[in-house]
């Protein structure tokens, strides 16, 4: 494919969803068709970009570089390389699946038109973030996702409507009105707080270096930026991206947002939005302010490892006490997984960065799948609360028996999440730990990184612990109840309010063909990335080597 065609395709990639969102405003379009059509077209474009990408060449491809706001020195510069290409495809894929899913299983909230429009704006922002090659353009795209996601959580989120079987004591503990609104506010304010500080950092870099062009800045590797400037910029930019990632002490917006968001919101939040933070760290922080990054890297690594352990311990506690929403458990597990990504980045080694990028994709696939699955469980039970699922017993929810395909997939997702070799979660964590064993000698702190590696390894054990325990609680359970005992008083309430076929067996509808179709690509890619990691690593490795610069 000629470079011009690739440029056009890449420029169309954010333009198509943006145009789609404008079309959603017009009363003449049918939003039910528009969403899948626009996101489907975007996915096809993304696949075309991947097909047209020259795998033998390094550096940016498919560039569009036009003057946009000359008085501020801002250029409209798009481009794709081995780091952003997988993320672009992942974004297009997940958004398409979400759009299709939302049409068949619409979340409760205002109509389809605004939802479709917001989803498309969200997609344009996400794609723009991964394609932008100008700091200000990157910032613009980075902020573009805020409001659509905020509205998705606030207006389509789970507002904690009383669900049968919820413990009254826990009801009282909830925030008074509209927990979804509260979660959305927290998401918005946290992320914006990070991103405005990041903007100050960008301006610091751009005004001192005289350009906002990312490839140009990356090629300089910080030449011309004083140490003080670099440190301040790295701190400001780092905070902004760390909020998004999220890094441990700045993570507290995430569990509520994930729990309150509708399924499509959770999938995109975990699958793509978190990656924007770590992608920014790799793309901007590491190459553009290398001195500042080296100063902050040990802290980043330490916070990442704390995140791994923290996430795992919180999850373990929640699963053991059966006092949590499955969505919340997966949200906390995301903090742990993103901890590995941060650790990988903080090693500043090719292995670590490759691992981080791999874990990014792996986590996007696995957690996307898990949120889809938990969403399906929630649709069926009216809640994803462990206590509700288990019906107050200790025996487990027996999803294997009630809905074997759903249960099996949930177990698969959990096992992939704990990093079983052969699935997508494995390589990222392995490489991140390996990277911290060989951490960049220029960093000093070898002992620190060794200790962090050991703690990270402990984290994988804890992760395995809670995920397996979760599988045990949700999927396993007592054998079929004898008919006499079946008339449990709350059985009726547990059934999904409008389940299509009230089965004779007290159970729930298993995964439909439609749902399996939505989940299949994620399952397949999880396996492919696990069995054939070279597909991704071959892409990222040259780009990462270039980012780290002469060593």
């Amino acid at each position: 494919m000629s470079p011009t065609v690739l440029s056009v395709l890449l420029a169309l990639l954010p333009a198509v969803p943006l145009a789609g969102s404008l079309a959603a405003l017009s009363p003449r379009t049918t939003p039910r068709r528009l969403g899948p059509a626009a996101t489907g077209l975007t996915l096809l474009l993304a696949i075309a970009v991947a097909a047209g990408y020259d795998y033998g060449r390094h550096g940016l491809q498919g560039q569009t570089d036009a003057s946009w706001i000359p008085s501020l020195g801002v250029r409209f510069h798009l481009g794709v390389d081995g780091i952003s290409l997988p993320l672009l495809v992942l974004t297009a894929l997940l958004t398409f699946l979400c759009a299709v899913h939302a049409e068949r299983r619409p979340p409760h909230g205002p109509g389809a038109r605004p939802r479709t429009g917001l989803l498309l704006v969200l997609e344009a922002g996400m794609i723009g973030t991964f394609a932008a090659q100008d700091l200000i353009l990157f910032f613009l795209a980075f902020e573009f996702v805020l409001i659509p996601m905020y509205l998705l959580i606030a207006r389509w989120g789970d507002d904690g409507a009383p669900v049968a079987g919820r413990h009254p004591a826990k009801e009282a503990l909830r925030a008074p009105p509209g927990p979804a609104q509260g979660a959305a506010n927290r998401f918005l304010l946290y992320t914006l707080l990070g991103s405005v500080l990041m903007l100050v950092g960008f301006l610091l870099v751009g005004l001192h270096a005289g350009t906002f062009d990312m490839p140009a800045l990356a090629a300089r590797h910080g030449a011309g930026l004083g140490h003080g400037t670099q440190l301040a910029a790295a701190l400001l930019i780092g905070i902004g991206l760390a909020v998004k990632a999220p890094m441990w002490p700045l993570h507290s917006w995430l569990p509520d947002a994930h729990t309150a968001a509708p399924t499509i919101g959770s999938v995109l939040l975990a699958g793509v939005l978190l990656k924007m933070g770590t992608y920014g760290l790799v793309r901007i922080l590491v190459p553009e302010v290398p001195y500042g990054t080296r100063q902050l890297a040990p802290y980043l690594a330490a916070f990442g490892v704390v995140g791994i352990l923290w996430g795992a311990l919180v999850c373990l506690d929640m699963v053991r006490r059966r006092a949590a929403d499955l969505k919340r458990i997966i949200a906390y597990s995301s903090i742990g997984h993103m901890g590995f990504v941060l650790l990988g980045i903080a090693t500043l080694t090719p292995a670590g960065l490759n691992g981080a990028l791999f874990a990014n994709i792996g986590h996007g696939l696995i957690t996307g799948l898990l949120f889809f699955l938990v969403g399906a469980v929630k649709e069926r039970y009216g809640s994803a609360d462990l206590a509700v699922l288990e019906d107050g017993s200790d025996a487990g929810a027996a999803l294997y028996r009630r809905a074997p395909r759903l249960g099996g997939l949930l177990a698969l997702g959990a096992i992939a999440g704990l990093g079983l070799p052969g699935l997508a979660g494995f390589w990222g964590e392995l490489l991140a730990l390996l990277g911290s064993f060989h951490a960049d000698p220029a960093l000093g702190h070898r002992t620190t990184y060794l200790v962090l590696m050991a703690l990270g390894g402990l984290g994988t054990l804890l992760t395995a612990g809670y995920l397996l325990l979760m599988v045990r609680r949700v999927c396993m359970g007592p054998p079929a109840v004898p008919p006499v005992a079946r008339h449990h008083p709350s059985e009726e309430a547990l059934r999904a309010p409008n389940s299509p076929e009230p089965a004779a067996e007290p159970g729930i509808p298993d995964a439909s063909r439609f749902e399996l179709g939505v989940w299949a690509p994620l399952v397949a890619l999880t396996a492919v990335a696990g069995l054939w990691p070279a597909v991704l690593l071959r892409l990222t490795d040259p780009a990462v080597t270039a980012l780290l610069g002469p060593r």
Partner: protein
Amino acid sequence: MTAVPPLTQNVDWLAVAPPLVTALAALAALLAAVLLGDGPRARRAPGAIAVLGLAAALALLIPLRRGDRTAFCVAGRPADCSYAADRFALAFQLLVLGGALVAALLSLHAVRGDGASEKRLPRGEFWFLLLGSTAGAALLPAARDLATLVVALETASLPAFALVGLRRDARGGEAALKFFLSSVAATAVTLLGVSFLYGASGTLFVRALPAALEHAPAQLRTLAGLGAVLALVGFAFKTAAAPFHMWVPDTYTGAPLPVAAYLSVVGKAAGLAGLAVLTVLALPGYAHLWGPALAVLAALTMTVGNAAAVRSFGRERFAPTAGPGDRGSAVRLLAWSSVAQAGYLLVPLAAAGHNGRLGRATGSLVAFALLYAVVNLGAFAVLAVVGRDRGGLRLDDHRGLFARRPVAALALAFFLLSLAGVPPGVVGLFGKLVVLRSAVDAGLGWLAVVVALNSVAGLYYYALWTVRLFAPAPAGERAASRVPVGLAAALAVTAVLGAVLSAAPELALRLTSGTLLR
């Protein structure tokens, strides 16, 4: 003016045309209201005259666009002019006249009074006062001597007091009185400062001041410094900078809505222009004094404004039924937000005081002021629509606006998010970018961080307000009536400008690269 003997002054009538045409239109509108009687067509005449007059004044900016004309110069000394139509003045005149035109469009229906009769504003007085104040505000950025500056400030302010009280109810009267008393005090302080400066330097001409102050006797230095600070007070008041902001919320809520819109854009622009002329042109040698002062003032203003806005938002949240007479907590919120925006507006000037690149800072200032004016007037235009529909402007009156009037709701969402500076309000994002850039450029890192934190606080209430637009409509909703032509035009103009500037911000931002004041 023509009576003055030719050896002292020559007048370039084209250069002074924009404020002059505005003033003539003011008189014409007043006369038309008095002379034409009370027929249905005659009733519309003053409004039409006002709108056309402002449009003509705007059009007269075009032949001046090279920005090299001056007027009222002392013969033989071409530098000593009282009036300069330079690019700085033209940019501000564009802002002032454009803002006044949108405010006029907003008031057309309120003045003609197709609602209940007690809501009607007296048309002759209204148009005369509005245009008179606009003429002063348009004169101010071009004024290049201290006396003209003060006279222009007064011309812009005095009719505004009457405008605020024009509704003749208790709240309006109280608002006007508060506005009047505090404004007069501030102007008096400015006059005192100006007289100190004159005493120390012996000249009134802005261009001549720096050199004159340089050579001022040493014992007058303190006097000059004091004068410099005092002179800024009146303009800071007009800009609504803290601690001179206390009049803003009461005045905005008590005034008719279009007048509040006018004050928030035109009044503020006049104040800023005065500040810029005084600091950058007249007192560059005192940058070590006013630079840090303005930086602190800016930080204080935005923090006070945002904190109060968040608080007033919370107050309505916990007491959703506002007390009697409180027609507009939405306007109050916009008032506090306009205080916060005044803080952002001061940042480029403060930056100028720090890095000495004075001309460039005025460019950033004008660019941000233009972007802000568009979105702020747009927000007021939608508020006018909502106020007509619902009879009140509490935040809860915005509930379900999307269901009722989808276009207006989307426009308001865009304007509010632009005020917050978050996409899809891309215009506002560029404004924030310009402000932050000027701060970082000047090495005012702390101020940049304060701006950043404040924009987060701002987003809190703008976003919560935006969410309400998309909330389900309350029961018993009346069907939406037709929007009057003037309102629709104002809304369309601001929305189109906002959209165009989102895609091509260079149109406004090119001002940031040029040196406007030399």
